Structures are given as C-alpha cells and as structure tokens.
C-alpha cells in the first residue's frame, strides 16, 4: 500500500490560512429531535383544540350529571300538602292541623306552612302584583321536609290527613321524581355517549396528527440508527420531544376550558339573584363545575400528552422495524 502526501492530525491537511480566529460556541447543543416549526405548531394547535373540546364535553357532562342528581335529591327531600278552600273551612287552622299531623310522622324533619305573603308571591307571575289573596279561593300549601334516608309512610300520612281534613291532599312528588330520574338517566347516558365519541375523536386526531408531524423525521431516525444509536435511545428522544409538544397543546386546551368553567361560575355567582341567573340555575342548578370536573380536565390533559408521546414511540419503533424489513427485502 502506498500513499501520497499523507497528513496526520498534528499536521492538519487543511490549514486555516487567513481564516478568522475560532469563535466560542454560540448556542446550546441542538436537540436530537429538531423543533419542527410548522408541523410542530400545527400539532400543538390540533392537540389544544381537541383537548379543549374534550374538556368542555367533560364539563358539560359533569354539570348535567350533578344537576340531574340535585333535581332528584331536592325533590325527593320534599312533599307538599295542599288544602283547597271550602265553605266554612278555617284555612289557618287546617294548615296548622295538617302541619301537626305530618310532623307527627317519623321521617319528617320539618313542616312549613306557606303563609299568605309567600303564596301571593308564588302566584305573582300569573296574577300580577297587588293581589289580595283573601278575595280569591286559592289553595294553600304546607311543605314537608323529609329525611331521604328514611322517608315517612306516605300512605298512612295521606290517610290520616284526609280523615281529619277532607280538603287536604298529599303530593309526595312521586310522579315527578320518577319522571326526573328517567330524564336524568337518559341525559347522563347521552352525555356519556357524547363524551366517549369526543374522546375517541381526540385519540384518533392526536394519533394521526402526531404521525403527520413525524412524517419528516424518517431521515433523522435512519441517521441515528446508522451511527449506532440503540432503538430505545431513538424512541426515548422522540417520546420526550412529543411529550413536551403534547403537554403544551393539552395544557393550553385544558387551561382554556378551565377558564371557561371559571367564567361561568363567576357569571353564575354574580347573577345569583337576577332573572338570568335564576333561569340558568333553574336549568342547570348551581352553574359550576365541581372539583371532579377540574380533576377530569387534568386527567384529559395528562392522557393526551401521554398519548402523543406513546404515538411517537410506536411510530419510531415501527419505522425501525420497517427499516429492518426493508433490509431483508433488499
């Protein structure tokens, strides 16, 4: 073997003639997986949007679920005695009597006679203000607060009431409760279905968006593979990069949803005594997402970030397998 004009490290074949002196390093070591300007931002945006929508759906389902439970418990906690006016009936005495009879039953926590003023207020939306309740034959009410854990014997109470006050009738809200329970169950089932669809859509979108963002990374995986990087090293680099990307997007989406929830709670608390607030409260109960709702948002954010990282891991591993398969095809 012969060679011409060999040089060694000490001799430096390429003398830096006339070159400026070497500058110190000006930047941090580049990450192995490059920050992808366009595809990376698009991925963060897609993840943020899908996380936001999933969290909103979760919040809405939590709200409906809580409200349905509230409807059910509030109504089953109460029963009403209605006393219709009749000739010669001393209404106040009948109301007091009914309250006393009902109060004597085990399972009754308290009884409240709805007084004249309150009755007038109840009728105000239909009959207007300035109503003189004594001029009208208006039925009067006694509300009974019951112990939901050990409700009283309504049949016995009904019998006792009608025996002593024939104008009295007891409404234990059974029909309402049954209907509301059915409606609440349907609403919660629909909500769970919508949430399941939304989460499935999020999973698929995140998986495909991550794979799309990785489409241009094949040459990096190949070079790393050829310079002797182990598969787990390559996978770990991509996993870390996409965990951060996923976390950025998911946190942004989750935060936006949490801000919306907080905004609604704030609006709801500010409008507590206004017609708008009452309307919302009538529909949704206390318009606020509980702690479980926020915990759900956190779970979704973490799950989306982990999903993004897992997708990148699987993509790297399958790319390396394909690389080996191609090798054997060659």
């Amino acid at each position, binding site marked *: 073997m012969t060679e*011409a004009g060999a040089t060694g490290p000490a001799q430096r074949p390429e*003398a830096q003639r006339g070159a400026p002196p070497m500058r110190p390093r000006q930047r941090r070591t580049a990450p192995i997986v490059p920050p992808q300007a366009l595809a990376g931002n698009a991925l963060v945006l897609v993840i943020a949007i899908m996380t936001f929508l999933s969290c909103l759906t979760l919040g809405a389902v939590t709200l409906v679920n809580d409200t349905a439970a509230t409807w059910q418990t509030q109504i089953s906690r109460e029963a009403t005695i209605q006393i219709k006016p009749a000739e010669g009936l001393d209404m106040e005495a009948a109301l007091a009597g009914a309250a006393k009879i009902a109060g004597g039953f085990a399972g009754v926590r308290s009884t409240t006679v709805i007084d004249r003023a309150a009755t007038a207020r109840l009728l105000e939306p239909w009959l207007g203000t300035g109503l003189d309740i004594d001029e009208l034959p208006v039925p009067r009410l006694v509300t009974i607060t019951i112990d939901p854990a050990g409700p009283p014997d309504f049949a016995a109470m009904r019998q006792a009431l009608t025996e002593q006050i024939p104008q009295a009738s007891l409404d234990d809200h059974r029909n309402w409760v049954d209907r509301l329970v059915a409606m609440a169950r349907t609403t919660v089932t629909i909500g769970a279905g919508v949430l399941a669809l939304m989460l499935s859509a999020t999973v698929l979108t995140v998986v495909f968006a991550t794979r799309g963002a990785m489409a241009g990374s094949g040459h990096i995986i190949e070079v790393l593979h050829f*310079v*002797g990087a182990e598969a787990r090293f390559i996978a770990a680099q991509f996993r870390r990069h996409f965990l951060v990307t996923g976390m950025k997007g998911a946190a942004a989406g989750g935060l936006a949803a949490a801000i919306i929830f907080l905004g609604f709670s704030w609006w709801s608390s500010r409008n507590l005594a206004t017609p708008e607030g009452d309307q919302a409260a009538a529909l949704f109960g206390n318009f606020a997402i509980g702690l479980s709702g926020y915990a759900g948002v956190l779970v979704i954010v973490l799950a989306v970030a982990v999903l993004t990282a897992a997708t990148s891991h699987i993509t790297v591993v399958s790319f390396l397998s394909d690389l080996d398969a191609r090798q054997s095809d060659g």
Partner: protein
Amino acid sequence: MGPEILRDVSFQIPERSFQFLSGPSGAGKTSLLRLLFLSLKPTRGLITVFGKERSQITRRDLPLIRRRIGIVFQDFRLLEHMTTYENVALPLRVRGRQEASYRSDVIELLKWVGLGERMHVLPPVLSGGEKQRAAIARALIEQPRILLADEPTGNVDPTLARRLLRLFIELNRLGTAVVIATHDLTLMEQVEARRMVLADGRLDIYD
C-alpha cells in the same frame, strides 16, 4: 424479490487493509457496502462481520457492531438542524457520553479534516466538499476498525478529492481498514492499493 445484484462474490477485508471497490454505475457497489454495514441482509450466502455470522447478529447487536464500522454515505446524511460539530459528535452523543468527555476530540478531528473554522455552521451553509469532510469526520469519530466510504469524492473537485484521499490513507496508517467505493479511475491511479472490481454481479480482486 428483484434480480440478483451480486452473486458468487467471495472476499475478505483484512484488518488495516486499504482497498478500492470499483465498477460501473449500478454494478452493486452501494449494495455491497450496505451488506458490509449490515443495513442490508443477503438473500443467500454468508457474511461474517468481526467474527460473527450475519444471521446470528440480532437487532440488539446491530448498534454495537455499527459503532465499530464507520460509514460515509454518498449523500452525506448530515442532520440539518445540527452544526458540523454536533453532527460529528452525534455517534458519541447517542452512546450517552457527556460533551465534556469528547469535545476536544471532536474539535481536533474537525481541525484535522479542515473544518476547524466551520464547526458551528449548519450543513445548508456548507459546500459539497465541506459536507463530505463532515460526513467523513462523523464516520471517524469513534475510531472505527473499518471505514466504508461510498463515492466519497463524487461531489468534489480533483484537488479536494486528492486531499480526501490523503485523509483516508492517513486513517489507514493509524490502523483502520478502509474500503472506498468509487468509479473515479483518476483517484485510484493515485494510490497503489487492492482493487475490487464489480461487474455483472461478479467480483474480481486485483491485489
């Protein structure tokens, strides 16, 4: 499965040897290098690398074996988001070594290949010859036992081609076996070395 590109090929690359692998375009030079680099599996036949038969080498073994083989790709395969320095240091970085432990070695090697002033430049700014030298430096940084170079002078002018050849010769003198795939006759005429000529899928060796 396509047509057989190489057949009845039998040869050995001795330690510390220097050889050219030549032949017309499409003769299978790159395929043969890829077989030696273990990035291609033979459809039949035996390949033994560092005493281990190819079929016994698992996916897990590949990275460890590749660390002992330096390869210079025809298309360089530098990572464009990394500087020359970072590209050359990549094989050490993927082994988990701390930068402080290899920094001076990488700088020394970059100076040796004439890229001392270009070490903080990104590949898109480098000329073809500079990219070629960066790719060679990356292949050499782990002091491989064998260096495979695919058309290493294909993108450079004759003067630079001679300089690169001198680099390979010096590397060989330091103990690395070198295989240079080329169809550049002028380059081969500059050195008296073993020639492996591929034609029609067959290999003729001229010692």
